[in-house]
């Protein structure tokens, strides 16, 4: 068990963390590159920049839309995100690990706050899962990963909370700690390749959408061929 723990904390952590950071950087660069190319190719270069920027900011901080539709569910989502980002980044024990690993650390959450936020994240994660499951319209547009992600994301929170707060038998403790680390590493690896990539692509989503509708000049014929409707009026 100790060897497994050492492996999970050492090489496996470096591998998965690097995959996450570089993977996110990669998709960000690829998307920006694709956007620049789409803009160059576009027949109509008239892009509503200002409107797109406003929409981007609105979607990044969706306070305006909370009350729009299913307010409770939206609020659950926002609170979930707050806990999801702050606890792993500013937990004292995590920052301490960074200090011993890379030589410097940063601001940490007070203990009580960390506990409250952890419990909040777990509850909100479960809320997101059931909120999706229990709503017929949500079910229609949901993919498998939409159900699995909230569940996967709360595993490290539950196990971390157990490690930090509850006195457990030694063998069980190591198992829980291992689960904590491995589940977090699974999240790292999957992150750049699934919908969670929105953590870096979100700021681009509106502009990508706008650019995608600016087709290359005289491409209508190609589109018809692609859609098996050759000769159809455009």
């Amino acid at each position, binding site marked *: 068990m100790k060897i497994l723990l050492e492996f999970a*904390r*050492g*090489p496996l952590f*470096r*591998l*998965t963390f*690097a*995959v996450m950071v*570089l*993977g996110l*950087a*990669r*998709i960000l*660069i*690829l*998307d920006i*590159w*694709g*956007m620049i*190319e*789409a803009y160059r*190719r576009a027949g109509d270069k008239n892009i509503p920049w200002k409107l797109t920027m406003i929409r981007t900011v609105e979607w990044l901080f969706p306070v305006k839309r909370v009350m729009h539709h299913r307010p409770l569910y939206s609020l659950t989502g926002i609170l979930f995100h707050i806990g999801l980002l702050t606890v792993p980044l500013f937990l*004292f*024990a995590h920052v*301490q*690990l960074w200090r*011993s690993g890379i*030589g410097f650390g940063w601001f*940490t959450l*007070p*203990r009580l706050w960390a506990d409250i936020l952890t419990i909040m994240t777990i509850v909100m994660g479960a809320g997101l899962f059931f909120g999706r499951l229990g709503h017929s319209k949500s079910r229609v547009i949901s993919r498998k990963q939409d159900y699995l992600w909230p569940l996967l994301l709360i595993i490290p929170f539950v196990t*971390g909370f157990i*490690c*930090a*707060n509850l*006195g*457990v*038998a*030694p*063998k069980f*403790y*190591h198992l829980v*700690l291992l689960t*904590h680390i491995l589940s977090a590493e699974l999240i790292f690896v999957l992150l750049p*390749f*699934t*919908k969670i*990539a*929105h953590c870096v*692509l979100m700021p*681009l*989503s509106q502009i*990508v*959408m706008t*650019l*995608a509708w600016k087709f*290359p000049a005289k491409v209508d014929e*190609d589109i018809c*061929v*692609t859609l098996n409707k050759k000769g159809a009026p455009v």
Partner: protein
Amino acid sequence: MNRVHVTKTILWMLTGLALAVALTRFAFGLGVTTNLTDTTPWGLWIGFDVMAGVALGAGGFVITAIFYILRQEKFHPLVRPAVLTALLGYIAVILSLLVDLGLPWNIWHMMIYWNPHSPLFEVGWCVMLYTTVLLLEFSPVPLAETSRWANIRRVLMKFRFPLVLLGIMLSTLHQSSLGSLFLITPFKSYPLWYTPLLPILFFISAIALGLMMVSFESLCTSWLYRRPAENNLVARLGSAARWVLGFYLLVRLLDLKISGNLALIFSGNWESWLFIAELLIMAIIPIILFSIPRVRHSATGQWIGSFLVVAGTILNRVNVGGLTMVGTTGEYYFPSWMEVSISAGIVAALALVFLFAIEKFQIWETRPREPESDPHVQPAFSRGGQTWLGSPSVAGRTRYSLAFIIAVAIGFALIPAHKIDSSGVVDIVAARALGGDTLFVDGNRDGFGVAFPHAAHIKAGKGKESCVGCHHMNLPLDRQSGCYSCHRGMYLTADAFGHDWHASAAGGNVACVDCHTRGEDRTAATARPCADCHKDLMPEGAAIKVNTYTVPSYADAMHDLCIPCHRQAAATNSDHPDLYRCPTCHNGKSPDWPTLAGRQPWKRRLNNHNILPVVSAGIEGPTP
């Protein structure tokens, strides 16, 4: 996937792996990444990348000499690839030198601080100048792609002939001066390799290698892009190479005969076998192969022959560069995987540049292209915005970037962390005491220690005035000294003064007479007191007065500082009668709690998450 895709994916992965290792090398130094020692300071990076890199770049000057000086115009298709290969070869040399140098940021020194007696100085200058010349020789090719730079291209074309002449001259100089470099090791190199003729041997072998490198590179790229190979030209190059190799063999063996070392070839030790293998691979077998016309004109014969010369010459450079010194130094060196990956990565990265240039510029008569995607394929949506932005201009960039980042991540995962951990003294957290909420006090840095509720102590001590109760050394910028900087011994009394540090130029840089009076005995008793220089060393009102250089051990110092206070507090605070007992601080509520009374009492590992209960428990720990 076709072979171009597979090859490029592999090259990207090698580059990625090397990038991770290179970052580690620059962050943590050569000790972490290489197996080099003071006895074997030159390893794979010098033997393979620098020595062989320069040699492999010989194709540039050999082919330009054949084309421009000997006016053999039929070799025109080989000139551009040869010049490009040479340019990339020299960039490889510079890159690997930057990785290998202990102080790479001083690489410009040779331009200002001249040492004309050093062959290394000549090599450095020649590499620098020749790389510039190659760049100027090659730049008309990419410049031809845009009309914007037409004027510059015209000027460069005008100076082409002088540039070619300069290139040949510089190559002649430093191909041989790489050999001169090893004239300094007559007693270190094995006699079968050491000879005063090393510069001449290096130059002759470079010519043969140049011919064969161009052939090998032409065969490789033709295979890669499925185009007809230039077998006729390669056969001609092979025919020329056998004469050069024959001459090389003659000079080398005659030199051994004259120096009286010829018998060593048959002495039966591993050096003699290495020598025989080297000569067979590098010269004898290729000479035989290229002397048979049928083999010389066959693709297989050309492949084998050119590969053998290239591999054999690399082996020769590695042998001269250090392998044959092992017998004298007695220190066996085998490159670490990280050294190998850097070498492979540099070659891979430059191979990618080569392929890029072949696809983008007019290197060959016809430009090869990666297969483009069909415009009428149903688009696959991108991951992020679920949006299709059109097919990418660089084919396969999604695949290559994925291969690259995965290789970088694997590189980071494989790096031996224990080497990094042991690469010097790491500051313990207690040294960064300013305002910390909870500190981890770990004197011997073994990962075990106690969590120290710093903020709670400040509060209990009624504010910042209480700091001097514990901290009694004040460093510049009002930083606290780490406890261990004086209490150096974990369990032994130590000397806090550090006499040698004060006297050394890299440390205090103080002259003897700055502290000791002239003419008197130089003892601690007669020296000036510390406070004469270090005026603010002791904060006013510090609880502990420094009267002597002798300091208690780290463990004793910590305990003497903590226990009296705790004992006093316990006496006055009936709520916490056990406050002064060991488990108050060494309260390892760890998973091993039941066994703690045994082998490792009071130990608490930072790496476990259960540092948290300590923080929440404050100074109230469980009692056994």
